[in-house]
């Protein structure tokens, strides 16, 4: 009896195994059908461009919606999106967007300048609670309206001259404004659809659900299975649909890096959002490796609280920074998965290279510390380094703690805090040294350098220099050319690093496993995906050794 049950069970098990052996993988099937299987990191919070804030949301929203201008994935320079062209006035304060007459919503309605006026008013409405409202602050009166100081929405610097002409008035020349048009917070939403499912500024409506959503991008939302996948399919109404090769994209919430890597190996994904750090050496050593790594528009650094002793002394801050051997840190602890950084702006940010004002110099670090009153670490009052719970942050902190001990003979203790506790500490400036990362929202040095203006919301160091503020807020925006503007940024960044309110550690990189059949997805600083460039070549197979 017992034996026969076991036998029956084992037969069932073997049969079910046999049923799923062989067959073509999702990637092979996808190559045949033009369906891209894309590891997207996590479940999106939502898909309303004026509500969400994250990177996974961004990837999906950019396939569903299109901005006035989009980024070329190879150069990151803006190119026409919904707007066929734009004119910038001589003083740089007015931009006229000429909307492509062929631009359509997925229900067939034309995309008009009025949709943009309506959408930007929505994005800036104080009741909307849009955390990215500040992306539109360069627009005249936008900040006053968004913060409730101005009630008259008519005074916003955005108007529709006619159906196809959108006139935007700016507070000041904003050379990176066209870049912002590719950020989802500036995207238009379909007014009739949004209103149909609730109030214009209501966060809790189902207009973004599959079947309800009307969008204007290369793809439309067809399925949204919570925590399983999101499927978007080619939008026949898209003005440039002839040039869209893919038929569909499947986005998977691949939260766990190791699981994602296994999915890739099993042929379930074309593209992974990340690569586990410990697998990188293996992939790097392969021939025809699917591994792709590129610098990313983000910097990993430590905030130094300049209001608290001993860090109120610039010599101490410099000594700490010069005692960190970034090259060794990156090549050993971090498996060369990142790039050492000596400043806040990542290198080659749309042609801008930050100055390198210092290097690893143990001798000078010791001298500076001695001048500050702590020769060979004597009288050192102790320091605490705060980071949020994460294996990688801990590894970096431990290595740097040891470097400080070796070079400067000082003790630094480590404090590990849970994410939200850590955020609270940083925002309250309740720390001495704290880990920080900044990922750019648009490719322009301004996005990094305006962090450190006096009382800036993300300054968090107490650094304040009126001259620095003057350059960032007034001189640079009015610079007549990109070269002169970048020269001003370099001057400001040099001033910043002379004061060393932050201790830059490394530049982030984007790291993916990409199946060789995927074409038109070049690495770039924004890790930006422009889905209309992507196509699948079914002749390519994974032959990594």
């Amino acid at each position, binding site marked *: 009896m017992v034996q026969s049950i076991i036998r029956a069970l084992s037969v069932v098990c073997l049969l079910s195994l046999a049923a799923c*052996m062989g067959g073509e993988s999702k990637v092979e099937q996808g190559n045949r059908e033009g369906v891209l299987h894309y590891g997207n990191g996590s479940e999106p*919070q939502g898909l*309303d461009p004026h509500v969400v804030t994250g990177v996974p949301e961004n990837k999906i929203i950019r396939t569903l919606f299109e901005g006035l201008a989009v980024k070329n994935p190879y150069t990151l320079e803006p190119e026409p999106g919904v707007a066929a062209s734009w004119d910038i006035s001589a003083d740089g304060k007015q931009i006229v967007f000429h909307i492509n007459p062929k631009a359509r919503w997925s229900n067939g309605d034309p995309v008009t300048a009025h949709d943009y006026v309506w959408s930007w008013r929505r994005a800036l409405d104080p009741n909307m*609670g849009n955390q990215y409202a500040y992306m539109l602050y360069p627009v005249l009166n936008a900040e006053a309206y968004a913060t409730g100081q101005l009630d008259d929405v008519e005074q916003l610097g955005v108007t529709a001259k006619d159906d196809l002409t959108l006139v935007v008035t700016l507070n000041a020349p904003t050379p990176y404004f066209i870049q912002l048009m590719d950020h989802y917070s500036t995207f238009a939403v379909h007014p009739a659809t949004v209103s149909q499912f609730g109030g214009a500024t209501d*966060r809790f409506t189902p207009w973004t659900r599959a079947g309800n959503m009307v969008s204007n991008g290369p793809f439309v939302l067809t399925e949204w299975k*919570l*925590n399983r996948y999101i499927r978007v399919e080619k939008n026949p109404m898209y003005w440039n649909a002839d040039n869209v090769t893919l038929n569909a994209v499947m986005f998977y919430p691949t939260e766990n890096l190791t699981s994602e890597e*296994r999915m890739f*190996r099993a042929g379930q994904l074309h593209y992974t959002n990340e690569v586990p750090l410990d697998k990188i050496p293996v992939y790097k050593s392969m021939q025809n490796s699917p591994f792709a790594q590129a610098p990313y528009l983000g910097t990993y650094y430590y905030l130094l609280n300049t209001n608290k002793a001993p860090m109120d002394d610039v010599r101490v801050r410099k000594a700490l920074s010069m005692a960190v051997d970034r090259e060794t840190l990156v090549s050993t602890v971090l498996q060369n998965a990142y790039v050492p950084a000596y400043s806040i702006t990542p290198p080659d940010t749309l042609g801008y290279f930050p100055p390198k004002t210092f290097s690893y110099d143990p001798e000078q670090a010791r001298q500076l510390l001695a001048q500050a009153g702590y020769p060979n670490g004597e009288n050192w009052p102790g320091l605490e380094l705060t980071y949020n719970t994460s294996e990688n942050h801990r590894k970096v902190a431990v290595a740097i703690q040891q470097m400080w001990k070796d070079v400067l003979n000082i003790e630094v203790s480590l404090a590990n805090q849970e994410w939200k506790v850590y955020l609270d500490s940083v925002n309250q400036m309740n720390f001495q040294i704290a880990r920080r990362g900044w990922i750019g929202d648009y490719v322009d040095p301004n996005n990094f350098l305006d962090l450190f203006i006096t009382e800036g919301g993300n300054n968090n160091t107490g650094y304040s220099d009126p001259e620095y503020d003057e350059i960032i807020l007034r001189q640079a925006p009015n610079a007549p050319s990109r070269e002169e503007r970048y020269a001003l940024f370099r001057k400001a960044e040099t001033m910043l690093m002379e004061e060393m309110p932050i201790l830059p550690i490394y530049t982030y990189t984007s790291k993916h496993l990409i199946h060789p059949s995927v074409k038109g997805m070049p690495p770039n600083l924004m890790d930006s995906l422009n889905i209309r460039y992507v196509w699948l070549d079914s002749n390519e197979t994974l032959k990594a050794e």
Partner: protein
Amino acid sequence: MWRFVIGRLLQAIPVIFVVITATFFLVRAAPGGPFDAEKAVIPEVKAALERQYRLDLPLHEQYFAYLGDLMQGDLGPSFKYPGRSINELIESGLPVTAELGAYALLIALVVGGLSGILAALRPNTLQDYIPMSLAMVGICMPTFLLGPLLVLLFGIELDWLPVSGWGDIPGDKLMPSITLGAAYAAYVARLSRAGMLEVLSQDYIRTARAKGLPEWQVVIKHGLRGGMLPVVAFLGPAFAGLLAGSFVVETIFQIPGLGRFYVQAAFNRDYTMILGTTVFLSTLIVLFNLLSDIVAAWLNPRLRAQLSE
């Protein structure tokens, strides 16, 4: 019997109430809030968000408002996923987690029960040692080790089974169920072995054998009912534990279940989600404990007699 059931149900109400109250105030006491983000949030925006979620009210008013909604079965809107209600998120995750839990439990019962019985039939022989040593390994091996090992072997080396998903590719439910069920199978094996050993040494079993009944009838008809009592008592809490504890397996296999919401909610300070899942799971635990008490009573003639008096 009914008095027993109703009495236990009434006891459950204050327990759940305490759970709600404690959870509500504990999550609020934690530093940081749902709208804290790495990039500083503009104060006006934060105020607008707090207004939308009633966080601008005094704490006690928020508490009573929450209780009021809860009475109507409304667990509130999610902080992390704007536009979705907690009810909707639980509804989407629960069937998956319940299905996973049920398969795991089935595996635990069949594999664990059988090997436990087999071991009990020939104690202190190889037929006992082998399944019991395996059970010991099963108890000691954490799911986060077993899962990836299975994936490496069957998903990648042999390429027999999909490495992730739930209901997307045929066969993708097998590995997660085994992974989650393995540890429980081990417990069931040990419990059923102990239970059966005790029962099989009783006088009425000797009587049954003396009557000349075939061995399988003795074991199944007379032995199982008493021998499985410890397993039944274990099942209720085990199933609730499977629901609450499937997080690791759900993460390894990318399964869209409830466990992921539950754990992430705490990191996100998604107040309504923490409360919703905690209340929901604690209710389940109470219910399943009650259920296993009832089944145990039904299986045990002495207890049944006591209760029906």
